[in-house]
Structure formats: C-alpha cells, structure tokens
C-alpha cells in the first residue's frame, strides 16, 4: 500500500472553522481528525488546469488538501469551456492559473495554492516534484505523460494518472514503491501520424469530469492511506456503454525506468522521444499550396477550380466551401471520383490533413493539385468572418 512519507499530520492542526467545514469528513471513521490533518499536511501537484485538472483541483481543494500546486502556461479560450469547468466565459483570455486561483481560493480560503506559470520540462520537473507528495497527471499529450512518469519514478512520487479520448478514459496509480509505472504499461508512445489527429479527436465534455474525479478520489485515498488504490490496475471507462472495466497491470522487470536493469536514470528529451512535431502542421514547404486570398480571386474570376474537402462529414456540417467531400482516410479507395485534368484545391480544417491528401494525389499522378494553406480556418479568419470557426 502506497503511503506518503513526509506528511506530518500532527503539525497540521485544524481551527474551529476548519472543523466545521470538514465535519462530514470528521464524522467518518475512514477520515476522522487524523485523516483530515493528513489532508491538510499533504502537498499535491496537479499538472495542467484543463479538462482533468479542473475537477481534480476543485475537489482536492474542497476536500481540504492543504497545499495544491498547479503547473500550467495556457490561456483560457472558448473551446475549453465545454469541459474545463474551473473556468468561466468571463475568464476567456485570462491565464488558466489566475482563473483557477480565483475559484479555488473562493471554495477554500485555507488552501495554500502554489501556481507555476511554466511548461513542465525536463529542466524543471525533478526540482518541482520534490516539493510535493503526490503528482496528479492531467496533461493532454504524450511527451508530458512520459516526462511526468519518469520524473515521478526518479523522485519516488506516486503518479495519479488519468487520460481521455472521445468517449473513453483510463485511470491508474503509477510509480508507487512496488507498483508498475506508465512505461510498464506502454514502453513507447505511438509514432506521430498513427494517433488520431484532431480530425478524429475531440472529447465528450463530461468525460474528463468522470476521469478527473477518479483521479481526485485516488489522490485522497493515497493521502489517507485508506482503501485499495488503483495500483497495478488500469481502470477503463467507456462513457458510451457506461462500462467500467479493470485490467491487471504488472511491474515490468525490463522497464527502462523502474525495472531491474534501468537504462533511464535521468530525464530525457521527450519531444524527441515521441517524435513530436507541431499540432497538425502543414507537412513541409515542398507541398504545392495556395493561399485563401488567391483561392478567393480564382473563385471570383469563375476559374475552373475543383475544391476537395478532406475533412469528416460532421465537420462539413459545421462549415464548408461547397467542396467535394472525401475524408482523407477514404481518399485511396475513392480517388477514381477525381478528375486529374482539373485544377484541384484540397483543404481541411488547418491544412495538415489536406497536405497529406495533396502528397498522396501527387504520387498518384495528379499534377494540378494544391493545398489550401491554413485550411478553412484561414478562410474564416481572412475571407469570410461570418463563417464559424471550430
């Protein structure tokens, strides 16, 4: 059973106001005065103040965790509000840390909140983690996941893990003394290009709520030393089927970071490890392309331009340029629908998928096919401000 070593609950005395605040905890034998003092003495570091970080931080604060650290460098935008419930419409444009701090201190003025306005990196992670007892991973990308895991193993801090995609979530507790770590589960990240891009991405807004609350629950249990933590177990949440399943996780003796013959003894370059590039970057400059302004001119001049929309049908419903829809994944089997003698302008949301489509079509013998730089988003920003952006 994982416990927290440097919590000194005896020093964390509760005032009468705090005793009243936590009365529903104090009358439970599993928490009681001793447990509540453990919570007050505990220091939890939350990585990210987004979808998972919102419920995590809110519940840990309400429950009386004494010191909460949050690492985030992002700014609230409108697309966050569908799931990141710590932020409100009025917070759009503010730093997530400032927005979160307002809500958390309003919920619990006894909270010692420590905000870190930075990206978590190999240069700062170890030093940061050493100041806390538990790390709760609410990040949204593979490099940071592996960084959090390795830094937790190297500093001996439990990693309360949660991850989400569309309708599915995963949760576990990694890097306890005897338990497996994230690398025992997944030794390597997927290579770029094989993970679903923003085309097929998205997430049901309540799912990070479900998974984040599971992470908060596990964090509280670790602090209290109560119950059975998700050590050596991977919880799978399927919100569509509303099924919770549990898989066995074993500590991998060959794990490079926590196994018997460790090859990773310090933090590495995680972007390189994950082969990372920008998010849906247009693939290189060698792709023949056209700007939204030039496309507009051609259309206004009634030039013969065939617009190929390689997004998904549900994206077409949001906005479109009257293009011919063939999702990029279907292009190989539907290429015969296209006329290679015509000038074709391919577009997607941002230009990444359509760059792949242009590459594919050029290799297939199409010579007059161009990528719309910046995609339909650039069109909405620079040509048609009435068009919705998503």
């Amino acid at each position, binding site marked *: 059973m994982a416990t927290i070593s440097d919590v000194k609950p005896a020093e964390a005395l509760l005032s009468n106001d705090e005793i009243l605040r936590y009365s529903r905890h104090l009358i439970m034998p599993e928490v009681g005065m001793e447990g509540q003092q453990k919570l007050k003495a505990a220091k939890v570091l939350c990585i990210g103040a987004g979808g998972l970080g919102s419920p995590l931080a809110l519940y840990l604060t309400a429950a009386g965790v004494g010191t909460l650290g949050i690492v985030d460098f992002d700014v609230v935008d409108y697309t966050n509000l569908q799931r990141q419930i710590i932020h409100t419409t009025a917070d759009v444009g503010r730093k997530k840390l400032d927005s979160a701090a307002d809500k958390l201190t309003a919920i619990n003025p006894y909270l010692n909140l420590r905000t870190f306005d930075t990206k978590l990196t190999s240069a700062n992670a170890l030093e940061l983690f050493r100041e806390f007892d538990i790390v709760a991973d609410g990040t*949204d*990308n593979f490099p940071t996941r592996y960084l959090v895991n390795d830094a937790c193993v190297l500093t001996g801090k439990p990693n309360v893990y949660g991850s*989400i995609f569309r309708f599915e979530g995963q949760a576990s507790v990694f890097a306890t003394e005897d338990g497996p770590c994230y690398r025992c589960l997944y030794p390597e*990240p997927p290579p770029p290009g*094989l993970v679903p891009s923003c085309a*097929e991405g998205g997430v049901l807004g309540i799912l990070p709520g479900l998974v984040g609350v599971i992470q908060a629950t596990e964090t509280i249990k670790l602090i209290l030393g109560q119950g059975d933590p998700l050590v050596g177990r991977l919880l799978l949440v399927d919100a569509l089927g509303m099924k919770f399943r549990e898989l066995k996780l074993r500590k991998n003796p060959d794990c490079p970071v926590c196994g018997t013959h460790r090859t990773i003894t310090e933090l590495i370059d995680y972007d390189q490890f994950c082969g990372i590039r920008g998010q849906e970057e247009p693939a290189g400059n060698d792709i023949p392309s056209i700007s939204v302004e030039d496309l507009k001119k051609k259309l206004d001049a009634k030039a013969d331009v065939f617009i190929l929309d390689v997004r998904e049908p549900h994206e077409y419903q949001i906005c479109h340029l009257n293009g011919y829809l063939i999702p990029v994944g279907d292009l190989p089997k539907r290429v015969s629908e296209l006329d290679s003698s015509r000038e074709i302008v391919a577009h997607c949301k941002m230009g990444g998928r359509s760059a792949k489509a242009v590459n594919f079509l050029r290799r297939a013998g199409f010579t007059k096919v161009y990528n719309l730089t910046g995609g339909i988003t650039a069109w909405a920003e620079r040509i048609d401000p009435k068009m919705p952006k998503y």
Partner: protein
Amino acid sequence: MPQIQIPSPLRQYSGKQASINVPAKTVGEALAGLVSQHPDLKRHLYNDEGKLRTFVNVYVNDEDMRYLQKEATELKDGDTISIVPSIAGGGTI
C-alpha cells in the same frame, strides 16, 4: 467464439464496430482474423516487420497477453480480447 473489443480510436477502421467475433484458437489467430476482416486496422496494430506495436496492448479477459503466452495464448469459448491503445488526452492529440 472469442470476442475482440475494439477501442473507439480504432473503430473508424473496423467499420465502426465496437466488438467483433472471430473464430480462433489463439490470440495470434484472432488478431490475424481481425485484420483480414478489416485490413485498414493492420497498420495500426502491426509495425512494418509484422510485430504488434508497442503502444497497443492486448488483454485476454483482464490479463496482459505479454504475461501469458503472448500471441500463442490459447483461447476458450467466451474469452474476451481487448485492444487497449495508449491515449494522451482531450485538448490536443
């Protein structure tokens, strides 16, 4: 017949099906049967050398097949095979 559970990120390659029954005596046979029914799944499950990708875990019921007999793990009637890929998060992938 063993049932293979397809995770949502891969369902676009399985004709949108969440679970597929494949007649097979071993895990290897079941996965081979799956990709022959749905060829688009192949490159997501196997690398160029024909080995299962390291970020795709395969479970027989609740046990990781790496700790059973891997692809040679024998299947009984009613066994469930789960494909569990790594997922990173919700904001950006």
